[in-house]
């Protein structure tokens, strides 16, 4: 139950209270009137000395059932009636000197009884309120528990569904991996065998056709491999640990640098922080970005590749990989990170177009963002954000 329903029940309670106020004071007046009637009746029948007890009973009843305010009213009314109807001089509010002490005792007694009764009543009322509150709270808790249980059930169901679809995806990837590659290998293999056997009798055109078949099969093979490893990124769990980006970038650059074939590349690598993440996956990010930078600067006399970082906040850092290569037109920037999206012709730059999609998926899984800036023939800069490993304590806690 929320606050507004609370307020509504509060309003209802105050309306009920106002109504019961009238009833209580009315009851007080009615009680005194009944006592007066009985007393007058008793006197007419010659029974005396019953007036005071009757009024006292009325006061006690009022105090018990109607509360302190009404009981005071009953005391006042009772004493007025008593002085008016039953003490000398009759039918006046004057009190004779003889009756004064008795009258004072009556009032004092009535007030004491009224207040005692009242204290008791109030305690009881408080108890009742407390009990009601408790009941209300219990009901609310029960309802909340029910809600939690319901949510829990839903969650378990969702998890099962997710698990099932994950399994399905896995078996899909598995059969793609097993069953799609085999015929492809046969296409490539038999084309190659045909080429070998019939090469002499084939003309130039036919040989080109054969070559295209072989190359296409190979290309499809690498597309399938890339797609499978891309889907594996989504399926495998990430292991979070402190990762020294300095070391990681050093490794990645050394790995990519092996295949640069003596090209003139000017590397500029800033000091980089220690970040949180899965080392193998983050390395894949850096290797992809660095090898892209190397690939797209192929036409440059001297390639310049800069790896830098900027603190976005005390917890977050943005790493950039900048090159002076082929660049890209900013109007296609949204296509850049898509699966199998390429902004260059296959003859210009090789590749399947999975690299940046992989980068984005990994960075997103780490809670970071990727973006890119570029200009045709002026180079490109790729950025990704990561959370920093803040303190040594946190670092060791997550190792």
């Amino acid at each position, binding site marked *: 139950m929320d606050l507004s329903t609370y307020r509504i029940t509060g309003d209802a309670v105050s309306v009920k209270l106002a109504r019961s106020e009238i009833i209580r004071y009315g009851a007080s007046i009615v009680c005194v009137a009944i006592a007066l009637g009985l007393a007058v009746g008793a006197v007419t029948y010659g029974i005396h000395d019953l007036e005071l007890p009757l009024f006292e009973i009325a006061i006690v009843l009022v105090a018990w059932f109607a509360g302190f305010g009404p009981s005071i009213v009953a005391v006042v009314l009772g004493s007025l009636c008593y002085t008016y109807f039953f003490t000398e001089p009759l039918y006046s509010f004057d009190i004779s000197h003889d009756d004064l002490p008795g009258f004072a005792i009556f009032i004092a007694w009535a007030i004491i009884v009224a207040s005692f009764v009242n204290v008791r009543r109030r305690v009881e009322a408080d108890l009742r309120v407390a009990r009601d509150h408790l009941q209300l709270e219990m009901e609310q808790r029960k309802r909340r528990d029910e809600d939690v249980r319901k949510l829990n059930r839903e969650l378990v169901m969702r998890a099962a569904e997710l698990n099932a679809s994950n399994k399905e995806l896995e078996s899909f990837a598995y059969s793609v991996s097993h069953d799609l590659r085999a015929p492809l*290998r046969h296409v*490539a*293999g*038999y*084309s*190659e065998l045909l080429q070998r056997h019939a090469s002499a009798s084939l003309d130039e055109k036919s040989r080109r056709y054969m070559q295209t078949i*072989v190359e296409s099969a190979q290309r*499809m093979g690498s597309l399938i491999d890339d797609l499978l*490893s891309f889907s594996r990124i989504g399926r495998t769990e990430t292991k979070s640990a402190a990762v020294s980006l300095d070391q990681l970038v050093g490794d990645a650059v050394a790995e990519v640098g092996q295949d640069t074939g003596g090209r003139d590349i000017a590397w500029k690598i800033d000091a980089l922080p220690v970040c949180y993440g899965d080392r193998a996956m983050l390395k894949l990010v850096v290797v992809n970005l660095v090898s892209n930078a190397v690939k797209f600067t192929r036409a440059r006399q001297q390639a310049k590749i800069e790896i830098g970082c900027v603190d976005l906040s005390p917890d977050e850092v943005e790493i950039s990989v900048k090159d002076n290569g082929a660049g890209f037109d900013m109007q296609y920037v949204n296509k850049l990170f898509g699966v199998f999206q390429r902004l260059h012709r296959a003859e210009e730059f090789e590749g399947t177009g999975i690299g940046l999609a992989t980068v984005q998926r990994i960075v997103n899984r780490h809670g970071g963002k990727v973006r890119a800036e570029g200009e045709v023939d002026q180079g490109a800069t790729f950025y990704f954000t990561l959370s920093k490993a803040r303190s040594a304590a946190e670092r060791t806690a997550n190792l």
Partner: protein
Amino acid sequence: MMGTLGRILLVEDDPRDVELTLTALEDYKLANEVVVTRDGQEALDFLHCQGQFTARPPENPAVMLLDLKLPKVDGLEVLKRVKSDDRLKMIPIVVLTSSHEEQDMMRSYSFGVNAYVVKPVDFHEFVNAIKELGVFWAVINEPPPGSIKR
């Protein structure tokens, strides 16, 4: 295939893969060493000299090239059974599969496979891989006692 020395046991259900593999081994004159079984059960029959193989000499092959996706008894099951059989467990087994799946690799190694090779899509790479496997296991490697001699 009967009547050959049969030092290489190839377990492969796809006839095209069988042909491509034999083509690759031909270059090193190893093709006539190969016994081909077409599913897991046939491979086990061969190894246990039972069924159609009751008449064969009881020596073990020098190497077994095993595909994972097989009809009847699959490759992992064959691997598990061979590696838990005292008479057969010394036979070197090379898993030869289409798949890069890590779980297959992990399970194969946990069952004690001797090598795990993913068949390359590129034919030249495929031929090279098969040749090297054939030469290494059937020529260079000294097979365990009880294997078929050259």
